[in-house]
């Protein structure tokens, strides 16, 4: 009761303004014009400070009189200016990059993490992502996130991420406000994010702000650059798997843009074989092409009104043909397609009110086809699955004073699904049969959400973030209402150390089912229905955070407990036609998930030597009534121990040595506990007995990746970079599967990747 009185009193008095004025503005990079997100802004005299928000703006309420305003951002020279404050003022700040530290790695830069109210959030600048040794020479945003505590990568070489026991379909992935339903090239071996256009990645493992919703496990909010508003720049990148080009620059004073394209060229080597196949049917081939295009136009209409239009499209196309006789043909093809467009408006209504409007469209589709033709018949089987979304988001940020930052807004989305349409054609000399099955009709649904959150500074030590999100989801046969409370608090023990805790609830209305097609992952998105009830995740987490002032070292220790309900799984994990022809019948519903663990990280953020050491101790279980006799079993990506060590050492002005070592418990695997021989006097089959799913574990997983990067600049400032990447330097054969060979009675392991050396060249002008 006493606490309630204190809170109510705080609410009443905190909105009563003293004689204060507001200074506001934006902080940007002077050389590129890029707005700097979460840059620090601080009055030394009153010791009051803030950071720029996700729009690059800051707003700070200060008392009348003289102030000493400073602004800083890691890798930039600090700004400092004495100002006499007599009225509300707009002060835009430009920071100069420290050229001698241009290549310094920044592991994590934002307001010191121990001072933030929210926990479970990690801000990853692109410089940090680019510093990691890469797989086949491709810098990959998603793969770099798997080295953070609490995040598990999927199968070796794949870009999927699993956050605190969640599934890969439970990650909300946003690209400038575009909700992405598939983030993979080559079935997951490469993510669709082109690192050249990314400014920053915000990852939330827990403590989700109420402005985010719709997924159960995590939020990955990717911000792209606005394009260089000072001068035209370009970059070429030549890699083994893909090559890319980037052009960015200003168009007159108020408009900037970037255009980036990336493509593979493996298919060039199959052109000859394809030609022979088309003519003769001989020379079977396997072809694969991927490409993506990213583009953005940023139009600063006035100082307080900016529009940006982001466009993304990505394609994967696989085709394979078997060698046949002259007139016959036998081919299989697969096409995966993603497109997203977002129109964003950033409007500063006044120094205390910010508005962001987003109109976005997102499309994901995959298509498979098997085709066979001979003298007797033509057979064609094809299946297509897609999802289209049009969404509108309006978000207000209101900073009435230094005690409150209020975010409120609404979102609405219209979805159109075609989960799985199948088409079979059989044509002979005499007849032609064509049959459509599966979900031939599109399914539509609408989702609407309103939210409000208040980040409250109750005292210098205590901060509280209270939020509520309310959603309505209208699919074909019912209506779902959901409420999601979010609570976070931070207690600053002293200037360097804080304690935090939070509780969040997330609901997920659209379900993702993931199947494998010849090792390529294939997502099918489904709307919630009366049978497929929305998934729900409740998460509690707490932690201590230490960050010594004026020191580059930081330390964190977090614990979490997460319960997930209404999870889905296929009856059979096999990619057979039954799974996709009648999805609702072939899906197991009402699954439960339980995940808990401890995560810790120590990191050095700046200097000649930088790096981080992360350790996660985690438990992750699933329970379905129809699987494993209804008993709980370890989830396939349950890894008890996970250690990741990332180091970067600047050998000289030009050379940098990066390394990344990963060591983790092997993933669970199901091994038989007994064998039943074929019946005597019969030719039937023997089989193995499995009493429980995921009853054993693969051997320990460990790998060391190293890269050496040489960076040189000429007098004009053009940058050339050559990097040699050695993936899995000691050629460890990490198993991705083990099984009994019934012919020999031996246990065999399958591995995919050995040492992979790659060379990358890039040139920036």
């Amino acid at each position: 009761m006493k606490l309630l009185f204190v809170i109510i009193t705080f609410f009443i008095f905190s909105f009563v303004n003293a004689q204060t004025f507001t200074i506001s503005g934006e902080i940007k990079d002077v050389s590129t014009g890029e707005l700097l997100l979460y840059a620090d802004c601080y009055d030394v005299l009153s010791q009051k400070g803030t950071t720029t928000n996700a729009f690059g703006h800051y707003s700070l309420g200060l008392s009348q009189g003289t102030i000493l305003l400073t602004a800083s951002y890691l890798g930039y020279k600090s700004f400092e200016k004495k100002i006499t404050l007599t009225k509300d003022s707009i002060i835009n700040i430009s920071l100069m990059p420290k050229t001698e530290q241009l290549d310094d790695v920044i592991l994590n830069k934002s307001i010191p993490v121990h001072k933030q109210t929210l926990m479970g959030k990690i801000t990853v600048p692109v410089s940090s992502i680019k510093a990691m040794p890469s797989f086949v020479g491709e810098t990959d945003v998603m793969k770099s996130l798997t080295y953070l505590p609490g995040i598990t990568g999927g199968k070796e070489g794949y870009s999927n991420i699993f956050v605190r026991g969640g599934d890969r379909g439970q990650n909300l992935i946003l690209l400038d406000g575009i909700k992405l339903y598939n983030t993979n090239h080559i079935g997951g071996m490469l993510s669709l994010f082109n690192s050249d256009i990314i400014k920053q990645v915000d990852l939330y493992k827990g403590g989700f702000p109420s402005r985010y919703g719709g997924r159960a496990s995590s939020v990955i909010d990717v911000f792209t650059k606005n394009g260089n508003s000072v001068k035209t720049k370009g970059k070429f990148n030549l890699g083994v798997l893909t090559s890319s080009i980037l052009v960015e620059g200003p168009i007159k004073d108020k408009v900037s843009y970037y255009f980036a394209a990336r493509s593979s060229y493996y298919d060039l080597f199959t052109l000859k074989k394809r030609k022979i196949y088309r003519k003769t049917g001989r020379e079977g081939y396997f072809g694969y092409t991927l490409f993506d295009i990213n583009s953005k136009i940023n139009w600063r209409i006035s100082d307080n009104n900016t529009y940006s239009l982001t466009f993304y499209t990505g394609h994967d196309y696989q085709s394979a043909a078997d060698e046949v006789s002259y007139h016959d043909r036998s081919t299989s093809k697969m096409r995966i397609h993603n497109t997203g467009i977002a129109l964003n408006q950033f409007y500063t209504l006044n120094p205390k009110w910010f508005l962001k409007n987003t109109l976005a469209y997102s499309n994901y589709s995959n298509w498979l086809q098997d085709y066979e033709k001979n003298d007797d018949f033509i057979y064609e089987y094809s299946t297509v699955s897609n999802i289209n979304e049009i969404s509108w988001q309006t978000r207000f940020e209101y900073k009435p004073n230094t005690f409150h930052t209020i975010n409120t807004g609404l979102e609405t989305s219209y979805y159109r699904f075609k989960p799985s349409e199948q088409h079979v054609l059989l044509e002979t000399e005499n007849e032609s049969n064509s049959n459509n099955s599966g979900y031939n009709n599109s399914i539509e649904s609408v989702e609407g959400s309103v939210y409000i959150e208040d980040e409250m500074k109750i005292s210098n030590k205590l901060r509280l973030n209270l939020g509520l999100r309310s959603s309505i989801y209208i699919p074909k046969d019912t209506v779902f209402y959901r409420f999601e409370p979010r609570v976070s608090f931070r207690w600053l023990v002293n200037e360097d150390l804080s304690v935090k805790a939070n509780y969040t609830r997330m609901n997920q209305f659209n379900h993702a089912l993931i199947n494998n097609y010849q090792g390529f992952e294939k997502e099918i998105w489904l709307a919630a229905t009366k049978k497929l009830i929305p998934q729900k995740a409740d998460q509690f987490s707490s932690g201590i955070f230490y960050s010594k002032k004026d020191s580059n070292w930081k330390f964190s220790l977090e614990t979490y407990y997460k319960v997930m309900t209404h999870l889905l799984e296929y009856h059979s994990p096999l990619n057979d036609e039954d799974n996709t022809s009648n999805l609702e019948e072939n899906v197991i519903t009402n699954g439960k998930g339980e995940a808990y663990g401890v995560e810790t990280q120590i990191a050095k953020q700046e200097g000649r030597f930088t790096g981080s050491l992360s350790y996660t101790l985690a438990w992750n279980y699933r329970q379905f009534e129809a699987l494993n006799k209804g008993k709980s079993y370890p989830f396939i990506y349950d890894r008890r121990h996970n250690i990741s060590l990332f180091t970067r050492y600047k050998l000289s002005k030009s050379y940098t040595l990066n390394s990344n070592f990963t060591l983790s418990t092997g993933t669970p695997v199901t091994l038989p506990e007994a064998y039943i021989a074929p019946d005597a006097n019969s030719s039937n089959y023997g089989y193995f007995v499995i009493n429980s799913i995921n009853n054993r574990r693969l051997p320990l997983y460990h790998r060391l990746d190293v890269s050496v990067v040489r960076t040189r600049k000429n007098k004009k400032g053009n940058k050339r970079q050559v990097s040699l990447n050695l993936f899995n330097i000691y050629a460890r054969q990490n198993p991705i599967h083990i099984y009994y060979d019934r012919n020999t009675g031996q246990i065999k392991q399958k591995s995919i990747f050995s040492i992979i050396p790659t060379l990358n060249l890039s040139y920036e002008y």
Partner: protein
Amino acid sequence: MNTSYKAIKYTVLILFFVSCETEKVIDYDTYYEGDKIVVHGYINQKDGVNVIVKKTLSPDDLEANDVLTDAHVYLVTADESIELDKIDAYLYTLPATALEMSQEYRILVESVSLSSIFSTNQSLFEGTFIDTLQIEEGGFSRDLQLTYNNPNLDSRYYYKIFEYFDGELVESSEYYDTMFDPYGIIKPSTIGVQYKTYNVYSTELDSLVVELYTFSDDLSRFCESFSDSEGTSEDPFVDYRLAVYSNIENGYGLFASYSYDTKTLIVEE
């Protein structure tokens, strides 16, 4: 340009060479829970009860002896239990005359050396009847058209076809002398009349005997899970591996009912 092309080509080739899938034998501690009784048994109003009884083997020793020498096998109803006749080291039977349509039956196996096992109850039932049988003459082949009426989507079927000439069996759809091939299960996707086409192999035949089997739920689940389990056993990309369904408590295997309808088609020249 030509040099660059070659450099890229060879780099790609090296990349694919070093990243190819490998397979090797590893030393891994296996776990075997000890011998347990296994039953593969079927009950039907025409064929009676046929049960194969044996024991499990360690996954490390697949060629070991699986005969259970001291088994006693009983068919148990609510009122009584009848011991089955031992035919050979594995097979135990009971004639159809001992069965009643209205009863529910389960199997009980007792052994001195191993723990007793029992199955879930099975009911005898009347299955789906064959509606029509006819031969369709094609350009190069002869097809047998079989129709039957499927009452619901949960039903599962299986068929055996025997081709006769001069009273002798000349061809059969059954390549194995097993009871059912788990991969041959038929799962209709629609309710109502079902058409099944079978390519007739024999050039000379005078009659065809068709048996259409209707599976009980337990038998369907066993066959479906068998093929799914096999499919997932060596696939590294599946998220979990499926177990073969069993309705035997304290042991493994299956005791299940089925029903079948037989029709003979006289083939005219």
